[in-house]
């Protein structure tokens, strides 16, 4: 039970934060709840023996992406939605989510996750998840996708600047 405590804490908090993101009426609260979720997901990564990813999660998500969101929220001066923050299709979306939960839960119960390995060995391989291992794999086996990812980032950089700059055809006359 004591070994499962970190999972329950981090997982539960991540889920609660996610629900808060959806449920909150004010955009800035949603962003802050998302920050909480990122941090707790990072905690889960540590529990799962992925400290490097946990660091990346904190740096990229909590450090860069969320700040970007906060900038935008503040830039646009969002004070909450219009008359209601929710769409007209909300009841149907809730129904769909219940269906999805039911189906996924059913699948989960029905599926046997490699029954020969009952649980996660802890600590399994000391080197798994550390930066050295990831670096070795990333720069050898996954070198090409890695380069592609860098190009994607470059394109995103340029695209974001072009679109947010505001000149050109997107600008109202």
């Amino acid at each position, binding site marked *: 039970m004591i070994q499962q405590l970190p*999972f329950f804490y981090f997982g539960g908090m991540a889920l609660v934060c996610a629900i808060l993101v959806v449920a909150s009426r004010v955009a800035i609260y949603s962003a802050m709840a998302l920050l909480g979720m990122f941090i707790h997901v990072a905690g889960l990564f540590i529990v799962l023996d992925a400290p490097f990813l946990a660091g990346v999660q904190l740096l990229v998500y909590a450090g860069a992406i969320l700040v970007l969101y906060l900038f935008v929220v503040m830039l646009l001066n969002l004070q909450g939605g219009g008359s209601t923050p929710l769409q007209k299709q909300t009841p149907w979306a809730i129904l769909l989510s219940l269906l999805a939960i039911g189906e996924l839960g059913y699948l989960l119960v029905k599926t046997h996750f490699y029954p020969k390995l009952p649980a996660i060995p802890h600590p399994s391989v000391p080197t798994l998840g550390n930066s050295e291992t990831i670096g070795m794999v990333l720069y050898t086996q996954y070198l090409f996708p890695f380069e592609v990812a860098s190009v994607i980032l470059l394109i995103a950089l340029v695209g974001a600047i072009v679109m947010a700059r505001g000149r050109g055809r*997107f600008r109202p006359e």
Partner: protein
Amino acid sequence: MVPLSWYVALSAMMFVTGLVGVLIRRNIVVVLLCIEIMLNAVNINFVAFSDYLHLIDGQIFVFFVITVAAAEVAIGLGIIISLFRLKESVNMDDYNLLKL
């Protein structure tokens, strides 16, 4: 000893939460935030399986997902700013450009 299925269940619940958020929120920024939730739910799954199967590839994928998420956020927010300039609104209702 946390069973793998628990992680999968957690991931599923977070994913559906994000999905509901995408479907019901009017604020486009919050919709983008909900997409982040869904990506994170997937990431949890990847890492859990990676740890469980002793395979590093899952973590590599998470790495790429984070990269793509960063790119998506940058582009998405750029689009939102452009749209805001055009429509003076961040409500999805006002963005019915797909309708003739």
